[in-house]
């Protein structure tokens, strides 16, 4: 196929060679080519090895027009070369010095396989019973960090249970749980530094929790009251916090991925000891923004961590309807990004992988991709009933046997850092705090109607000013038609 393409581009090269000065590398064995005469000498070492028998079949001329980091390649195929002449006049090249590195020639017409017989391995530290794997290559975690990790994982669980219930009671309009992905949320957050910027999707509230977002702040956002940082404008679970470097959630899947790359480029230019991290799902990895983001990050050498939560489902769409590659991890390689696959239900593996990724990203100024294998153990959201499209025993298998919180607890407990009594105290304490937070958030009035108009721009333009005035007049005429907990 490549040959076919090359033969078609026979004449292209001449048109593409705008300036001889731009030529930096390439190879040729084609003496009559104009391009040949333009080639500079530093590629000659590519001819040093003895020719392969069939090399003559690849007689062609390559040249590259390059300016700085951005290079364009023009390719030409010569079909009128005298092969005898070639073999006597010059040694045939075995590899091509092509942008990105040398490419070996082969006489074998081999297509790379679309599917890998052996799938990329998954990094794991704790087995499903909460025991350390022998020889596991992981970082030591202090008691203090480990206990906070576990506490926050439990808090996240209790939060999900109680907020979910509040939605079922009609007190909030929407909710979405993180059940099954507690380790991903908390362990990844624990391995980062607070000055790393987070570009979340929507199933990562644990990162906020880790950084100190209070239960009351969560509740305020869910109720969209006047203390909600987002001023009641977005649906529940669209948290954000300037203070905690957590960019506000948007419902649009994966749009945050290229943002994280641009922000990382800023950190790079400002020489900050920080990186960005962006979270997204398996579904999100199908978007144009994912691919654009990965490619940009590699080209711009941006210190960004791409954290894919591969939980097997995008609403009702199973992973097999989403992609046919070996998950997401292999795409990192395709874009030139160091990548790792981790067990998403193993808090220790996630912690070590993210810690290392952060180091790599900042020290080497490179993007890093992490694919965490996990399972969305809850419904997609309160608008969804996942029993309609997936078997109950599948859910059970993951919820029970693979439960990341249970697994981590075993390890923490075996270290003597946790026990039943602390567990039940913590749970009931969080439950109490949450029910207070909900009651308080519910009582607080909504943001004033002026906040519908503010922040569309930095300052209110005339059209909005007019609309605000006429809305006020209208509401004054029909007060009974409007909610009483919004100040006009």
């Amino acid at each position, binding site marked *: 196929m490549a040959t076919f393409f090359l033969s078609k581009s026979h004449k292209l090269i001449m048109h593409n060679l705008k300036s001889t000065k731009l030529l930096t590398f390439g190879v040729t064995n084609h003496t009559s080519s104009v391009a040949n005469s333009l080639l500079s000498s530093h590629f000659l070492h590519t001819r040093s090895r003895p020719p392969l028998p069939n090399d003559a079949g690849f007689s062609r001329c390559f040249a590259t027009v390059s300016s700085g980091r951005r290079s364009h390649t023009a390719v030409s195929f010569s079909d009128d070369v005298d092969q005898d002449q070639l073999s006597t006049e010059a040694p045939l090249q075995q590899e091509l010095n092509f942008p990105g590195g040398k490419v070996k020639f082969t006489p074998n017409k081999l297509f790379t396989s679309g599917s890998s017989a052996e799938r990329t391995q998954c990094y794991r530290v704790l087995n499903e019973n909460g025991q350390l794997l022998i020889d596991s290559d992981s970082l030591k975690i202090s008691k203090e960090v480990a206990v906070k990790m576990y506490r926050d994982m439990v808090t996240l669980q209790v939060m999900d249970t109680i907020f979910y219930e509040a939605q079922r009671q009609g007190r909030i*309009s*929407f909710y979405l749980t993180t059940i099954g992905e507690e380790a991903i949320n908390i362990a990844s957050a624990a391995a980062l530094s607070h000055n790393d910027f987070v570009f979340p999707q929507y199933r990562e509230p644990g990162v906020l929790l880790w950084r100190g977002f209070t239960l009351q702040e969560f509740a305020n956002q869910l109720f*969209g009251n006047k203390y909600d940082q987002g001023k*009641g*404008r*977005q*649906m529940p679970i*669209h948290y954000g916090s300037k203070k905690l470097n957590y960019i506000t959630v*948007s*419902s*649009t*899947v*994966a749009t945050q991925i290229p943002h994280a790359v641009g922000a990382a480029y800023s950190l790079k230019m400002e020489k900050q000891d920080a990186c960005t991290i962006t979270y997204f799902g398996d*579904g*999100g990895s*199908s*978007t*144009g*923004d994912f691919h654009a983001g990965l490619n940009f990050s590699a080209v711009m050498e941006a210190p960004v961590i791409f954290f894919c939560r591969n939980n097997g489902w*995008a*609403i*009702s*769409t199973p992973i097999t*309807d*989403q*992609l046919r590659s070996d998950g997401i991890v292999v795409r990192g390689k395709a874009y030139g990004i160091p990548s790792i696959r981790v067990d998403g239900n193993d808090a220790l593996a996630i912690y070590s992988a993210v810690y290392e990724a952060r180091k790599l990203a900042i020290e080497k100024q490179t993007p890093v991709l992490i694919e965490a294998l996990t399972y969305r153990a809850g419904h997609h959201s309160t*608008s*969804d009933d996942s029993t*309609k*499209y997936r078997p109950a025993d599948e859910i059970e298998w993951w919820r029970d046997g693979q439960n990341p919180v249970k697994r981590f607890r075993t390890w923490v407990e075996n270290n003597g850092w946790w026990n039943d009594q602390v567990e039940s105290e913590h749970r009931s304490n969080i439950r109490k705090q949450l029910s207070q937070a909900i009651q308080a958030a519910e009582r607080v009035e*909504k*943001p004033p*109607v002026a*906040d*519908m*108009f503010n922040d*569309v721009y930095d300052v209110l333009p005339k*059209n*909005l000013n007019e*609309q605000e005035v006429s*809305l006020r007049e*209208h*509401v004054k*005429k*029909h007060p009974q*038609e*409007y*909610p009483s907990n*919004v100040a006009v």
Partner: protein
Amino acid sequence: MATNLRKFNRFGSILTNHSNSLRRFSSPAASSGVLASADGQLLQSSKSINLYTAINQALHIALDSDPRSYIFGEDVGFGGVFRCTTGLADQFGKHRVFNTPLCEQGIVGFAIGLAAMGNRAIAEIQFADYIFPAFDQIVNEAAKFRYRSGNEFNCGGLTIRAPYGAVGHGALYHSQSPEAFFCHVPGLKVVIPRSPKEAKGLLLASIRDPNPVVFFEPKGLYRLAVEEVPEGDYTLPLSEAEVIREGSDITLVGWGAQLTTMEQACVDAEKEGISCELIDLKTLLPWDKETVEASVRKTGRLLISHEAPVTGGFGAEISASIVERCFLRLEAPVARVCGLDTPFPHVFEPFYMPTKNKILDAIKETVNF
């Protein structure tokens, strides 16, 4: 499917009105359109069904009547998040009704290629709010496929369905009405139905129309709107507006779910002695100026209402066109009661919306100008 039906009544004729139907439009004229294009089945049996079931029926008929028709989109396989494709994959197979990866530009780009090969490609965008990643494919590709090739090629078999509009708690990204963006694109048709019967007939017409159509479905009405819908195959004409309520003092023009609110305003205005004529535009591009013009010539006043922000909304186009055609006949400025020029807000939704009272106030102001 029967379980999806709110009411399961059979009627001998589509002319029979179900007295309990919610949100039924009081339009004796409305049913004649159905009759005329109901493939001659004047006495087609009908059932009282909701809007998503009507869409489901239309899709079913589309698959059944043309073996080269395909339906796909995110979560379409299990029936779609709004249940519009329920049962279709089971009946017609996973090769004709299927899930796609999460990528709107991919969905529409794929659909264009499929349509260009002579198929009917019915693509679902899960929410109109997520149509924007496909904007390039729709605007630069689908809309210009025929024109740029000198009619060598076309993708007329393409229909893009997307639920749009307010639902009470959708906020920024589950509420938008992006129709005006597409009304600015020569080569596209833009269609929005107001009720189950309209949805079925207009969707089948859109699917069979030899041009790419963007079909926005009022998702707030999927379950709420219930109406007698003929069970069989029928189409309703595109680019034909319909007077759904006759009146003499002012013309109201709208489309989709907003008509429900507008009709309530008409009823209230009538109590105060104002006679309103209400027009459902149905097809926004290319739109039926003549019907609107004729009505405004009669009433001398015009009010347009839509949920999308007022600035640059399609109401502006209607207003400009009618002022051009009826300048001397107009007795008051054209009124627009629309969404505000802000993103669609969550807790402020009741304030943002072009409510019945806002419309009623504007009717009175216009009539008393």
